[in-house]
């Protein structure tokens, strides 16, 4: 009985960690810090340091709402032809891009 409970708990823990935090689990905290820095300062050179937009569009949760994460991830990875948005593939991994898109859609934690 207690072994069943343990298994159940273990199963729940695995499921919980696998679902919303999947990208998180693959990126160590030091790299997360680097990615947030890149987001604010390098993505920020076109999208604004506070992500309210500049030459490029705003990247706030409101402006991204309703856009599929996969589309946004593809935009970051492959760029947008005919616009200044460059492909970040080669500089960022797919997991890192997925993590950044998820953060953007929720709102960047230290954005003022």
């Amino acid at each position: 009985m207690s072994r069943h409970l343990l298994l159940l708990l273990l199963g729940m823990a695995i499921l919980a960690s696998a679902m919303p935090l999947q990208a998180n689990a693959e990126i160590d905290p030091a790299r997360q810090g680097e990615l947030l820095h890149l987001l604010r300062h390098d993505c920020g050179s076109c999208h604004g340091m506070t992500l309210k937009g500049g030459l490029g569009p705003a990247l706030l949760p409101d402006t991204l709402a309703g856009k599929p994460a996969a589309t946004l991830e593809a935009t970051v990875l492959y760029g947008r032809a005919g616009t200044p948005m460059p492909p970040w593939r080669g500089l960022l991994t797919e997991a890192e891009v997925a993590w950044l898109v998820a953060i953007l859609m929720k709102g960047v934690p230290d954005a003022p």
Partner: protein
Amino acid sequence: MRRNLFALLLLVLLLGGCATPLRGTGDLGLIIERADGSVLIVESTHQQTLARIEGLGDLSHASVVYSRDERYAYVFGRDGALTKVDMLRQRIAGRVMQSGNSIGGAISQDGRLVAVANYQPGGVKVFDAETLELMADIPAAYGDGKYSKVVGLEDSTGNRFAFSLYDAGEIWVADLHDPRNPVIEKFRDIGRLPYDALVSMDGRHYIAGLFGEDGLALLDLWHPERGVQRILDNYGRGEQPLPVYKMPHLEGWALSEEHAFLPAIGRHELLIVDRRTWQEAGRIALHGQPVFAMARPDGRQIWINFAHPHNDTVQVIDTVKQQVIATLTPGKAILHMEFTPRGEHIWLSVRDEDRVDVYDTTTLKRIAELPARKPSGIFFTARAHRIGL
């Protein structure tokens, strides 16, 4: 009698307390601290910081112009704020929130008007330099009721301002002889996505860089009737451009007597242009995508910084030899460079190391460093007397 004496003593004390040593402003400058919304007032004779002024808002993309007496700085913030800073009293002398999102500005030849280029709402606003009162509002309307982001706003002679419409692909010249009634001349179909521009030191040639097109747009402001001419057409020779991780800034306008030196977009090259014919006169291979190509005031050297991921490097070009003479790695994220008025030193902002470095341009050695929080633009007051800066 005794009361008079007391009053006199009090007056002397008060005056003495207020008096600061007399000084000029010709060796002063501002450093933008982009993440904190603050600026440092610095002095380039002894490479020191005099004061930090806070409360300027979002300075993540900020630039500065100066009044002709070099007393006041006008700081253009990303959030649409225009802030006037008193360089001597070391405080904010005036501030207006004039749009939702702006990119930069310019000051008129006579110093009376400050113009700001706005992304949102797209257009140009012109302010009285003394009072910051709005004098003119020029919406960048195009097509079917749309408004374009405005870039590359530059001052020229005759109280004219030239600027480019990013979304519309147009160049406009606004004549502000009568500031409340600007006369606008529009040049259409100048090319796709002009992203920045520059004006030559004599105020004559306005050049807009185009994104995604192999060429630049040139307007001769002495001969506007000749229209906009395409120069350096097909400089990319039809090759696929490399990705650009930070847009070049053309403001540095590197010039020698015969040549102009321009950052190529999507190519790790500096383009050399013959100033008489506007034909390509060569190109210099570089370490990465150039962002600024800044000419030393005597025109003998050009210092270049680079876009991510090459932004830890600066290259120095000798304009006579037309080759790279030094590749320096001062630190992480070199965002901007500014020469002292006669060019013996250059100041570099090292954003990710919270530092500004000063290099001797003859020995190419670092001679000083100043702490600064996430520094970006560095602007010395000598810009007050240069057209197009």
